């Protein structure tokens, strides 16, 4: 398959994705599908950002939602305090706040590895969550931040469901391109080196602490953007957006899909969204066990399919080819 053919397919698929609400309008559950897809894409951006850490750099972070939440709150609060709805301002604020927070937390955690790193990110993110939950004056506390402004681009109002979806889908395509480019760049290759043998990387002359911090800040910023998109979608920010549950959700998405790949987090977000949204409607209404089901699926993957769905796919492909 030549590069031209490949890129054409990608362009067509991206275009179809972005214009989904328009060509699917005739279907009955089109509205539901658009919302579901929108939320799945937001999760995908979130998961792609986490995969930079977990899959590429070998930094298992369980506190990534802190940046998602920070971005969401920043977008909402900036809009309210600065009395503007302009997307560049609120989205910019989200990215900036998330980046700064990632820098602060990053400095503290970047010299740890493995399980210790996991615990530190978890604990620090939980503190961020608790602050969001209790600081009622700024964040609305346990009631959340209501009245997040509409995303406006100049005079264009992006708050209709269709246009919000387009905004999310376009951001997703850009995010996927960024991650794809990063993976093939010297930075991406250096991150893999750090993951595989940090000591050797240092012996080669790489400042590994700085590399990890850069990855952490980059991932945090991207998560913050995902958070802002979530705020625009629901016009509401809940403290849970920064909570452990959300961090776990992203982690599960990455692992189930397949860490360290482009398609993994994307596939994972499809699966997790289905479990969260579609499965409950298949169960009797008294049983609200979507989290438990997610947990069981996650345990199954950790035990039997550590490389996620992408890994399973590769394995199946190899088996088919060797016949």
């Amino acid at each position, binding site marked *: 398959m030549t590069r031209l053919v490949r890129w054409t397919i990608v362009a067509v698929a991206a275009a179809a994705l972005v214009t989904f609400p328009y060509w699917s309008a005739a279907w009955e559950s089109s509205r539901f599908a658009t919302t579901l897809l929108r939320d799945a894409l937001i999760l995908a951006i979130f998961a792609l950002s986490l995969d930079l850490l977990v899959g590429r750099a070998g930094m298992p972070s369980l506190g990534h939602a802190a940046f998602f939440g920070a971005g969401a709150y920043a977008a909402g609060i900036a809009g309210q305090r600065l009395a503007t709805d302009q997307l560049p301002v609120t989205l910019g604020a989200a990215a900036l706040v998330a980046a700064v927070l990632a820098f602060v937390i990053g400095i503290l955690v970047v010299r740890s590895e493995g399980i210790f790193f996991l615990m530190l990110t978890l604990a620090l993110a939980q503190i961020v969550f608790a602050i969001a939950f209790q600081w009622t004056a700024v964040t609305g506390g346990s009631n959340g931040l209501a009245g997040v402004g509409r995303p406006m681009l100049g005079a264009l109002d992006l708050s209709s469901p269709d246009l919000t979806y387009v905004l999310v889908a376009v951001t997703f395509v850009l995010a996927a391109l960024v991650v794809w480019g990063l993976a*093939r*760049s*010297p*930075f991406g*290759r*250096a991150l*893999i*080196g750090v993951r*595989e*043998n940090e*000591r*050797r*990387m*240092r*012996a*080669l*002359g*790489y*400042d*590994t602490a700085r*590399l990890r911090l*850069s990855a952490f800040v980059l991932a945090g910023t991207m998560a913050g953007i995902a958070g802002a998109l979530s705020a625009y979608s629901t016009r509401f920010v809940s403290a849970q957006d920064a909570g452990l549950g959300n961090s776990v959700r992203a982690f599960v998405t990455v692992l189930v899909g397949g860490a360290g790949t482009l398609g993994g987090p994307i596939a994972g977000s499809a699966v997790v969204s289905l479990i969260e949204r579609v499965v409950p409607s298949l169960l009797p209404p008294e049983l609200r066990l979507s989290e438990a089901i997610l947990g069981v699926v996650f345990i199954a993957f950790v035990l039997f399919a550590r490389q996620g769905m992408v890994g399973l796919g590769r394995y199946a492909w190899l088996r088919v080819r060797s016949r």
Partner: protein
Amino acid sequence: MIEVRELRRAFGGVVALDGVSLKIPEGERRAVIGPNGAGKTTLINVLAGELPPTGGAVRLGGRDVTGLRSWQRARLGLAHVYQRTELFPPLTARENVALAVAARSGPYRVFRGPPRSEHADADAMLARVGLAGREGVLARALSHGERRQLELAVALAQSPRVLLLDEPTAGMSPVETARITELIVGLDRALTILIVEHDMDVVFRLADRVTVLHEGLVIADGTPAEVRGDALVHDVYLGKAVTVA
């Protein structure tokens, strides 16, 4: 080029280096030998910046690097080949070497040079160490001897001025040992090499001078012939109880 003054390194109560002083001029090939536990690997690790000394100073190229970390010393032209193979297992031989090539320009370039030039450089380096044809093999799939060759290729790809080799022929067959030895012999004469070795044939083939360590101290320092004839060195190697003042 390499200068070490009164270098000390203790691990709790265990003194690994007890005041080692060395001077290695540019272009010299110095072998460091000694019985097990003499402190040879500790010396290399302190020189490489992986272990801070508890006393003394390290100078590279006339510059005091005692406070510098391993990656900073690498940027000054220091390459280190470990005693135990330290590679990137899931990457191919070419990718392993390419990381070293890429290190020279740093990973933060926005407009990256195409990986092809890095790969071309990597392939050339691999050919030089005798791994032509194995470029696409995963590092973990290489034989032990091939991995040591790869280690050398990675180190050389850093374009170093100083090369630290910690037992490069360990665990190798005579054929592989001879090949690696000739490779090192054939290296650029401007390169300063410090090699820790147990295999005396390799030492005598390679070294301009030999330093003998015992219990963290230098007990002999001279040409290979001088050291071979040194009575103290004999005693140490034959296991006689020796107290060094």
